[in-house]
């Protein structure tokens, strides 16, 4: 039993990273209506931002805030300089532009920080034992960080006027505009949120693994699948789907081995989408 609980915990922690990055993708998709391939590199930027903040201040919280700010800044700049200019183009044009932005970010970080790995210098701690099950104190902190990031995002989305406007634009952009909602302010709020959430995901991934310019790009595929699996445009769906994918991967390993665990997560996703094409929490969109 303890064996399985350990696997589930490992899966939940991996799932949080997937879920947060999927949340960033799904927010952009829901409101700006294109798949943002620069999400992975925004994660990397968040990880480097947090790393620098942590080195300067010695505090992970300060580092996390700096990382999130860096992610938000890149989100807003990407919108103002690129995506706003292309707003009337097809979403394929926007997708390609976001791939280009991702390349630029990755190359710039490669030049600035080098290609060798960096790590968060955190003290290594022995686990607490809950009966048979070892619990990593670090995992709890990371889960707490992820949880607070989620609370902020959902708080903004569901409790503030700007969040209400964002949801209105997501539901029906044309109707929102005729109701007098300024698209620019909504978009800037969106990119701040999406950039910061991706950055927090990147920071958590960076703390758990190693920080390198390619790390975010490597995590992009599971993030996209979680966004689709959860129902594209659904914030709750993205997080839940991320957790399910993470847990499914780890729990599958005794049966399929480690090489095929990634494939297994995708089998789960395919199965759900066959039964429920709009994803876990997706809404049916009528033809416009």
């Amino acid at each position, binding site marked *: 039993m303890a*064996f399985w609980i*350990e*696997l589930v915990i*490992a899966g939940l*922690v*991996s799932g949080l*990273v997937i879920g947060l990055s999927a949340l960033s993708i799904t927010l952009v998709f829901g409101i700006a209506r294109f798949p943002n391939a620069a999400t992975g590199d925004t994660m990397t930027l968040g990880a480097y931002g947090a790393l620098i903040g942590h080195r300067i201040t010695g505090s992970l919280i300060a580092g996390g805030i700096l990382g999130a700010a860096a992610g938000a800044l890149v989100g807003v700049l990407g919108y103002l300089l690129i995506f706003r200019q292309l707003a009337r183009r097809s979403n394929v044009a926007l997708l390609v532009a976001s791939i280009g932005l991702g390349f630029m970010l990755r190359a710039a970080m*490669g030049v600035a920080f*080098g*290609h*060798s*790995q960096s*790590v968060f*210098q955190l003290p*290594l*701690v*022995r*686990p607490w034992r809950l009966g048979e099950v*070892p619990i*990593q104190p*670090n995992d709890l902190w990371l889960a707490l960080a992820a949880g607070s990031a989620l609370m902020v995002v959902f708080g903004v989305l569901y409790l503030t006027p700007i969040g209400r406007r964002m949801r209105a634009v997501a539901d029906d952009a044309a109707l929102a505009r005729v109701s007098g909602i300024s698209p620019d302010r909504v978009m800037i709020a969106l990119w701040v949120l999406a950039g910061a959430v991706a950055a927090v995901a990147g920071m958590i*991934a960076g703390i*758990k*693994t*190693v920080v*390198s310019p390619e*790390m975010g790009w*490597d*995590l992009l595929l599971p993030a996209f699948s979680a966004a689709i699996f959860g129902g594209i445009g659904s914030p709750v769906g993205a997080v839940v789907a991320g957790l399910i994918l993470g847990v499914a991967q*780890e729990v599958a*390993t*005794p049966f399929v*081995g*480690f*090489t095929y*665990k*990634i494939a297994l997560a995708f089998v789960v996703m395919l199965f759900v989408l066959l039964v429920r094409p709009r994803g876990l929490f997706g809404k049916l969109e009528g033809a416009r």
Partner: protein
Amino acid sequence: MTIDRRTMLQAAGSALALTLTPATGKAQGAPFRIGALNPVTGAGSPYGSGMQKMILAAVDEVNAAGGAGGQKLEAFPDDTQTTPQAAVLAAKKLIEVNKVKAILGTWSSGVSLAVVPLTNDANVLLMNTSGAPALSVPPANAKGLSYRFQATNDRFGRAFAEIAVKEGYQRAATMAFNNASGIGNTTGFKKAWEAKGKKVVEEVVYEPNQSSYRAELQKVLAAKPDVIVMGSFLPDTTIILREWFQTGAKTKWIIPGWAANPQLIAALGLEATEGLISVDSVSNENAPSFKRYDALHQKVTGQPGASNVYAAMTYDMVITLALAMEAAKSADVAAINAKIREVGNPAGEEVFSFADGKAALAAGKKINYQGASSVLDFDQFGDVTPDFGVFFITKGKLERRYVVKI
């Protein structure tokens, strides 16, 4: 006749080219072109720029001694970025645009395995520092144009087994990164370990770029091994060892030197790395050729030569190639290729530098170049057998305790 702009440019261009071509003596034709294709960026970056600088320095050394086989050498540096994709593009450029006859210094098996079909098709020599066993045999080495200056992963695995026996371990488990190099290490270990009548209690092959390796570790540790033998690289080793230390387990580790290096110690700290065993091939440190290399390495990088075993290999590549050219008295790749074993293997007078080898060849003697990286005796597959240094990480320093010969 009308002269359009294109014709004019061509004419002007060829006139310019003529004036720029240096007056060449009979012995000096066009230079023999080689590509210095090294991991300047990416996972190999701690080694790559040193490898490249030593190729350029060795080319200067050969040219200063009057060139090889009547020709000067000319090197074209490029970067593999330690990825097969970038390496293939760079190799294509070196072969098709720069017209190189040999590519020297590819690092990482994935890169060498991706480049070798191109060099084979173009009938170009490839000298690599990678470990994958697949590089020894067809299709990779179907034409016998590929030479390896590093030990194969299989030989690394055999060295790991020698060390595990010497250290008195009984229950060994293995963890391998899922590629030719990682699995090569652990299968080489398993073969040699089982030949000694021991058992491997658990084997795990894991995928790159995972956010956690806890499930993999859980499986390995459940078999209660006393030592875990790795076929791994730096980033995954960092993550695995961090998670291992945090489980509180007390296993010993045997790890290849390119993963258990000073960067790993910097990433994990003193406590978690204490007692790890890091194994790497060691240079031919008592040979005069190593002293030459060491002095040159100091000069061009400011670091001692022993800090980069791969730089010693790339230095030897140029010297070996140049000696083979000298012996072949030709710039023809097939003729040079036929002479590589002749100048590197016994029997013959042992020589330790290009100039000495050239002089001995001129005197009509057979030679056996003793390299800076190893004695460089190529077997039928173009592989060499260096010795292995066994380093114990003690208080954050890699401390060499003994050398293993296989």
